[in-house]
C-alpha cells in the first residue's frame, strides 16, 4: 500500500497517496483552487505550471501553483481568494 498523507483543504481533512500534487488533492476534495477576478470558481487547466489557474494558498502563502507542489503531512491549503 502506498503511504497516505493527510492535508487540510479549506478546513477539512483530506487523505491522499504520497506523491499526490496539491492540485490533485483539491480536485479530489471538490474544492476550487481559486476564485477569479469576476468571482468564478476555478480549477486547474494545464496541469504543468503554465496557466496559473491552480493557484491556492498553501501554508498561508497565496498564489502558489499547486500543480507543481506535492502534498506534505499537515499542509494547510485554502482556495485563493
Amino acid at each position, binding site marked *: 500500500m502506498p503511504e497516505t498523507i493527510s492535508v487540510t483543504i479549506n478546513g477539512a481533512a483530506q487523505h491522499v*497517496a504520497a506523491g499526490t*500534487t496539491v492540485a490533485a*488533492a483539491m480536485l479530489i476534495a471538490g474544492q*476550487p483552487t481559486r476564485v*477569479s477576478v469576476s468571482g468564478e470558481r*476555478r480549477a486547474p487547466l494545464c496541469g504543468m505550471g503554465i*496557466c*496559473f*489557474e491552480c493557484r491556492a494558498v498553501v501554508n498561508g502563502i497565496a*498564489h502558489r501553483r499547486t500543480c507543481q507542489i506535492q502534498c506534505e503531512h499537515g499542509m494547510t491549503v485554502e482556495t485563493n481568494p
Partner: protein
Amino acid sequence: MTGDTNRTDVLVVGAGPAGIAAATAAARHGLKTIVLDDNPSAGGQIWRDAIANPHAKKEAARERAIQSLRASGAQLLSGRSVFAADATGAVWAAREGGPQEEFRYQSLILATGARERFLPFPGWTLPGVFGAGGLQALVKGGYPVAGKRVVVAGTGPLLLAVAKHLAEDGAKVVRIVEQAPLKRLMSFAASLATNPAKLLEGLRFRPRAPYSTGCWVTEAIGATEGQKLSAVRISGGVKTWSEPCDLLAGGYNLVPNTEIAELLRCAFRGSFVRVDDSQRTSVPHVFCVGEPTGIAGLDAALVQGEIAGLACAGKSDAALTRRAAQGRAFADRLEKAFALRDELRSLPHADTIVCRCEDVPAGKLRDRLSWTDAKLQTRCGMGPCQGRVCGPAIEFLMQWRPVSVRQPILPVPMQAFFPGTTAAESAAQTETESIEERV
C-alpha cells in the same frame, strides 16, 4: 544581478527528452554540464512521472534515458524556474523559498518544450474543463479518473495518446473530437510510413471511443450555474449535439515555450526558434532543441538534443543530421494536417472570457488596435500567466502580433531578485541535490 555564480561548460534548460539527450551527450564528452528543470522530477511533460501511483507502468524509454543521464555525470538541478537571461552568458533561476541562483555557461541549450494551445469557447472556465495533456498530468499527479465520463477534444496526435492513457486509468472516454477533417488525417497517416514509428504512438492507438473528425466542441455546459461540467455541445458544421460527460480534456495542439529564446533575441521563423543543422540559434553559444524549433515529437527531440550536446563538444554525426531533417519534414506535415479551421474563431461569444487571469471577455477585445493596446486598455494578458494561455489564442482569434518578452518570464517571489547564497552554500546544495537524489 549579484547572485552567486555557478559556472559550467554546458547549461541545459529543461529536463524533458530533448534536454536529457543534450546533457547526456555533452557530459559524455567530458564537458561540465548542468541541467535546470522546473519540475520536481525529470522527464518533462511527455515523460512525466506518476509519483502518486507506484503501480503505474514505468515507461522504458524514460527509464533508459534517465539511466544514461545519471551515468554521464551531468548534474540535474530540479525545482529551478529560469526567470531571466541576458546576452552576457548569464541565466538566473528561482528556487522555492530561496534567493536567485546565477549560472554562467560556455554553451546554453534551450530545451524548454511546449505547452497546449487553448482556444476560448463558452463554458471553458468551468471546473471539469481541463487541457488534454493537462488532465493527463493531473492524473499522474494523483487525481483519479476511474469511472468518469471524459470527452477528449481539440486537435493533434496528443488527443489520441491522452485518450489511451485516460482509458488505461479507468476513465470512460465517451468520445474523441478532432477538428481536422478526415481527408487531411488520412493523407497525413499515409505519409507516416516513411517515418520512425514511435513518432506516432498516438495515431497508432485505435480508440474504442467514437472518433469524430471534422468536429469541435462549441460549449461546455454546467450542471448548475457556474458549477461542475455536465455536458459539452459538439458541432460538425451542419450537425450539432450534446454529449453528457463529467470531464472535458481539450487542447488544440501545442505551442512552443520560447520565452528564454525571445529574451536572448534569438531569430525566429514564424513561432519557432530558427536553428541550423547543429541546432545553433542566431545567437552565439545558444542552441535550441525539441519543440521550440518545431512541433515534431519525441524522436525528433531526442535526435536534436544529441546533436546539440555533441556540437558543444565540437562533434557531429551524419546519421543524426539525416534523422533531424526527417523530423523537420514531419513537423511541417504535422502542422498542415492539424491546421486550425476558421470556424474556431467564432466560438467565443462577446461575454466569453478570453484572458482567464484577468477575466477579459472577447467583446472587450474587438475594438482594440493591437496586442499592446489590448493589454493597456483591457488588462488582457497582464495576469500571472503572462499571456501564456490567452496569447496563442489571441494570435489565432485576432491575428495580432505578439509583443516582446521581458524578465521575469514567469512570476517569481520578490526575493528571487536578491543576491544569492554564498559560494560554499551553493556548492554544498549542488552536492546534496545531485542527480541520484532527484530523479
